Structure formats: structure tokens, C-alpha cells
């Protein structure tokens, strides 16, 4: 009970932020009824999904300060567990998704234990490597569809057990629920003992250890939490797209995107990953869709995308949230 209270407690935020959160929630709830097109809705689903990924990454990458570039492997674990269980044994999403999360937690433990002997660049490279190795295994593993991937059987609509709907509105609300669960969890996390320990480790690991904090164990715990978040998103991706292959759910591109969005938005802040996703997902999807159809403008969206990222990171390394805070301080 205390935990839930703590998760819903946003009192330490400024009034502007709290009002912003309420307005944002109202906007999200009303969004499917505003009458925007279905493409905009699909982009919103991607935004919520990547916010979820970003919030997960933020535990270890943001609060923990570890450059983690291998999150796609856990997206893959979540997606593959849901898909394989559905194809092999017809197990519903609501059973297979938690199992996927458990497997991701177990796997992240096995990987995390040796990985956190490494620090800095070596750790970042190692996370990329483990993700690539897992992707390569899945590309060649015939039992799980190898490079061909897995197609999920199409069910009669709507099917709540298997999460198959004709209209994207259902998917939208489901991912929104996941999004808010994650947001409340993160709100508690940042105030928890582990949250403070991680920030201490980020600032000065040796000082933290001298105070009796087991740095490695803290990092492993944060890494595991991050993996669980990401695996939920992976499971959702599988039922949403009805097809997965190692390239779409385990690619290095995906890992980088997850980290990039959180970093650009502002790592180690509650709103950072959400702002990052709100900025980059529409940019990527809309620009690509608008410019992609016109000859002569193909590829321009990549340039704009890259330039904006460079501009933000050059101006304020703490990301967009850093810029906002900078202005607020000036205002005061």
C-alpha cells in the first residue's frame, strides 16, 4: 500500500510539471477520439512503446550512468517468447508475456553478472556484443524460425486473450496502460534506496563502495529491471505487428534507438525518455513518410534527423530536459 502511494506521489515536482502531467494524461486518454488519422495513431503507439523502452533503459543507463547498448536482446526475448508460445502451444498473450519477462530477468542476471565486472567503454562494447551474439544465434536457429522469423496466426477480432484487434485503438490503450505502470514504477524507483545508491555510484563508485554499497549488485539489479521493462515492450511488438524476425526485434539499430531517445530527452530524469521519444519517434515516422514518397527528397529526413540530434547534444549534453531546466533556472 505504501509502495503504491509512493508511486503515485508526484509532490516533489514543480506545480508546472504536475499540471503538465495531468494535461498530458487527459490528452493521451482523449487522443483516439480527436479524429486524427490512423497513421498518427500508429505513430502514437510507437511513441508510447519507445517511451516504455526508454524508461527501462533509464534505470541502468540514466540513474546508473552505465552506457548500455544492448537492450534489443531483451526486446527479442520478450517478442520471441510471446510468439513461440502462441504458435507452438496457443498460449495467450497474458500468460506468455509475463513468462517472457521472467526469462528476460533470468537471462539478464546471467549476462549481467560477468558483464558488470567491466566498466566504461568496455562495458558498452560488451553489451553490444552480447546482443549481436544472441541475434546471430536466432538468425541461425532453425527451431525458432531462423532468419525467416515467426508469423503469428491471425485470430478473429477482437480477441483480448491473444491481443488481436482490427482497430489500433485497442492497442493504443493497452500500451498506454503499460506506459503508466512504467511511469509510476519509475517515479517510485527514483526515490527508492536503489535509485539513490545508483546515483551515488554514478557520481563516484569508489566513494559509494566505501560507504558499504555493493556497486556491482546494484547495477545488476537495475540492469534486470531495465530488461524486464523492455521485454514487456517486446511482447507487445509481437502481437502488434504479427510478425517478428531477428532483424526487427534484435537489431543493433533498435538498441541504439532506445539509448538515443533516452539520452536525447535527458537521462536520469523521469521525463527525459518520454520527451526523447516524443521528439524522435514522430520525427522519424512523419518525415520518412512525407518525404519518402517524393522523388528528390528521399533521404533528406535522415539528414534532418541527424542534424537535430547533433544540434541538441551540442547545445546541451543533458538533452532536451536539460535545455528546459536551463531556461527555467534563467526564468527564476
Amino acid at each position, binding site marked *: 500500500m505504501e509502495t503504491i502511494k509512493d508511486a503515485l506521489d508526484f509532490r516533489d515536482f514543480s506545480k508546472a510539471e504536475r499540471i503538465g502531467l495531468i494535461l498530458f494524461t487527459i490528452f493521451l486518454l482523449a487522443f483516439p477520439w480527436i479524429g486524427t488519422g490512423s497513421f498518427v495513431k500508429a505513430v502514437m503507439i510507437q511513441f508510447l512503446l519507445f517511451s516504455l523502452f526508454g524508461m527501462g533503459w533509464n534505470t541502468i543507463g540514466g540513474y546508473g550512468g552505465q552506457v548500455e547498448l544492448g537492450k534489443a536482446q531483451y526486446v527479442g526475448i520478450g517478442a520471441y517468447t510471446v510468439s513461440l508460445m502462441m504458435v507452438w502451444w496457443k498460449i495467450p498473450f497474458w500468460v506468455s508475456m509475463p513468462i517472457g519477462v521472467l526469462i528476460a530477468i533470468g537471462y539478464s542476471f546471467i549476462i549481467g553478472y560477468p558483464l558488470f565486472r567491466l566498466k566504461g567503454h568496455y562495458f558498452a562494447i560488451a553489451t553490444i556484443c552480447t546482443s549481436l551474439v544472441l541475434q546471430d544465434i536466432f538468425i541461425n536457429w532453425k527451431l525458432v524460425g531462423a532468419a525467416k522469423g515467426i508469423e503469428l496466426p491471425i485470430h478473429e477480432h477482437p480477441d483480448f486473450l491473444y491481443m488481436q484487434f*482490427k482497430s489500433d485503438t485497442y492497442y493504443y490503450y493497452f500500451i498506454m496502460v503499460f506506459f503508466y505502470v512504467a511511469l509510476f514504477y519509475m517515479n517510485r524507483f527514483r526515490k527508492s534506496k536503489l535509485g539513490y545508491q545508483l546515483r551515488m555510484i554514478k557520481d563516484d563508485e569508489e566513494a559509494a563502495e566505501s560507504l558499504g554499497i555493493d556497486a556491482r549488485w546494484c547495477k545488476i539489479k537495475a540492469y534486470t529491471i531495465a530488461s524486464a521493462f523492455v521485454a514487456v515492450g517486446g511482447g507487445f511488438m509481437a502481437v502488434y505487428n504479427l510478425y517478428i524476425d531477428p532483424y526487427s526485434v534484435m537489431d543493433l539499430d533498435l538498441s541504439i534507438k532506445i539509448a538515443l531517445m533516452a539520452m536525447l530527452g535527458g537521462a536520469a530524469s523521469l521525463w527525459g525518455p518520454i520527451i526523447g521519444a516524443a521528439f524522435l519517434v514522430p520525427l522519424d515516422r512523419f518525415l520518412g513518410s512525407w518525404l519518402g514518397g517524393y522523388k528528390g527528397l528521399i533521404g533528406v529526413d535522415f539528414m534532418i534527423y541527424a542534424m537535430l540530434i547533433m544540434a541538441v547534444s551540442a547545445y546541451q549534453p543533458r538533452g532536451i530536459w536539460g535545455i528546459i531546466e536551463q531556461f527555467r533556472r534563467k526564468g527564476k
Partner: protein
Amino acid sequence: MIKDRGFFLSFLIMLLSLFIISTSLYAEEKEIKIGVLYPLSGAAATIGRDLQRAAELTAEIINNKTPGVDIPMAQWGGIPNLGGAKIKLIFVDHRGEPDRGADLAKRLILDDKVVGLMGAYHSSVTKTVSAVAERYGIPMINDSSTSPELTKRGLKWFWRTTPHDDYFNKDLFELLKGLTEGKVKGVKAVPKSQIKNLAYACENTEWGSNVAKSLEAYAKEYGFNIVKGILYTANSPDLTSEAKTLTTAKPDAMLFASYLSDSLLMIRTLKSMKASPRFFWGQDAGFEMADFTKTLGTDTNGVLTRTVFIAKIANVKKVAGQVNALYKKKYGDDLTGATARSIVGVQAWAYVLNKAGSIDRKAIQKACNEINIPANELVMPWAGVKFDATGQNILGRGLIGQYQKTKEGKIDLEIIYPFDLATANMIYPFPGWK
């Protein structure tokens, strides 16, 4: 007076609404939107844009009366059974990403209100796009994805005009068998022991790994021996170890399923290793693109590629030459297997719409199931377009071409298989790189 005014007013409103309804109906009939998903940026951008051009050209041929093309649709000037309505293609760029393809398909169906879909080149993207089409009950004609499994999923709204990889791989083994039987133009029967050992290198996505599987199966069926088979990553910057593995196996024939950049890299690496197989075959994609010969030049002499269209087909098929001439005049390149398939895709859409005589999706579904486009109206050397219960065109067939150096030092693609369409003597054994 007041009564009169009321009557007059209601009459006016009625007239106005009739006008609005009729114009909207008219506008609806005048333009039929088809959503086309191609990879217009990213790794496959070059081919995506070629496909887009070919599709646009075909829409122009259908929409405007085009003299000099002996296909009935070139004289239509719009879809006849729909009051001369024009086909409007809406292109979107999926970058080869399945999830992006699915989102864009939703945009096309729900926001742009397209009548049907076409695309998406990558088999993996076609999978997600066709799943969306199935979910919304919107017809999709696939012109260019060759993974055999696409039509084995029991979909009710999916049809494919191109033959799939199983057809093409069978063609390869028919050619190998033909070599041993002396059926190939310009080559005496080759003892089987000279050509028995095969090695393949296929890129490791859905397409390449399917080709590999199919090659293994056919090799067994036709009594050939696979001495080495590898799957590799298409976008890897170096293929030295893969090439080394192939050459050390000393195969009689080397077989590939590669995209453009990796096919170029593979051939350059094999050249530097002085690899000397007797038979060198590529499964379409990279091997049949215009840039393949532009980049490698005479190094491609003797290389075989499976395809569905070769410009030389004009010698035996008039309409192919006519459409190819139009394309070449406009864009400077000959049609390739990929671009010609895009032409047939749009053509199939036009014929289906004309047969349905309506944009009602049930009518279109029925028309797709019943359509029969005769061979002489296609640019392809196929027996026609007719879909079976799974949605696969059963009248398609593949070609195997060989790049041959002309006297002027240029490279031409000649037809080697089917034997009855052969346009030149086959160069055998593969001359290698000296």
C-alpha cells in the same frame, strides 16, 4: 407566397445536395487509389526507386492512350469498365523495415482510403503488410517478393503475380541437368562428374536462407552434391573469410543469393583469390541489377543469373520490346526482372479493376480469383497470370541469363534457359578472371 418560397428553398437544397453527391461520386469514379509500398530509402533504395519508376510508367500507359504498345490496356485511357477512371499510385517508403511497412499500410488503408495495395519487395515487409491487409479485408497484389511461404498462409486478400524462389531454383537444376544432357545451346553434353559438386553462399535474411534450404532440397532430388553451404550477413564490410571457405571447398559450381553491395564485394573478393569454378550462378536481386554490370564491367562475363525478364526477350516477344523501349527512353536503363515485375503488378491491378467493374472489395476479391491475363499481353515470357486457391500465379516462369562480352567489349545479358528461348550460345565453362 411564403409557401412558394419554402418549396423553392427546399427544391434548391435538393438540387444542391444532388449536385454535391453526384460530383463526389464522379470524383470517386475518376480516380482509383492504389497504395504502393517500396523501399525508397535505406539499403535497397536503388532498386526501390527503379520499381517506382516502372510502376509509374505502367500507370501512365494505362491512364493515357499510348500508341505503339500492342497491349489492349495501352489503348484504354483509364479503366474502361469504371468509366475511364484513372489509376493513381500512392508511393510510401518502408525502408525494408517490417514494422514501418505495417504502419504505412494502415495509413494507406485508413487515411488515404486506397482501394488496394501493392509491393513490398522485401518478403519480410510483405509479411507484415499482407497481415494488415488481411485484417482490414483489403486486396493486396504482390509483384516482387519471392519467398515461397508468402502464399502458403491461407490468406484471403493476398495474390502474387511473380513466380517464387522454388520455381527459380528448380530452373537452375533443370539447366544443370540440361548441361549433362547436351540440351544447352552451344555446349556439348558435359559429364556429370564435372559439375556434380556445388557450393552456395546466401545472405542470411528470410530470402537468402529460404533459397539455401531450397537449393539443398533440389540438389538431393536431382542427384547433385552440396560440398559447402554458408549463410552470411549482406551488409558486412568484408567477405574474405566467406570467399575463402567457398574456394577451399573446390566446388564445380558456385551459387549465390545476394543483394547488390554484397554481390559486388563477393565477386571482387573471389577474383582476388582467383577462384575458378566451372559454373557461376546468382539468384536474381543483386546479380540482375543495372548497377551490377555498370560496376563490375567485363568481370561479369560468364556469370549466370536467374531473372524473370531480359531485354533480349524483345527478340521473341514484341510487347516486351515496346515497353522496354518506352522505359529506356524515359529512364535510360533496360527493364530488369525486378522492374518488369512491377509493370506486371500494376497491369494485374488494372485488369482486376476492369474485370470487377467496381471498387467494391468483394468484387475485386472475386475478380482476382477469376482473372486470366493472356500471355501475349504481358512483357514477361510467362504463360499468363492466373491465380490458384493460395493466390499464387501458376502461369509464371523464370529465365536464366548469362552476361556475355560482346565484340565491342560491352556486356550483354543473353537468355540461356528455357532452352527454347535461348538467344546465344552458353559460355561454358565459366572463363574466370584473368
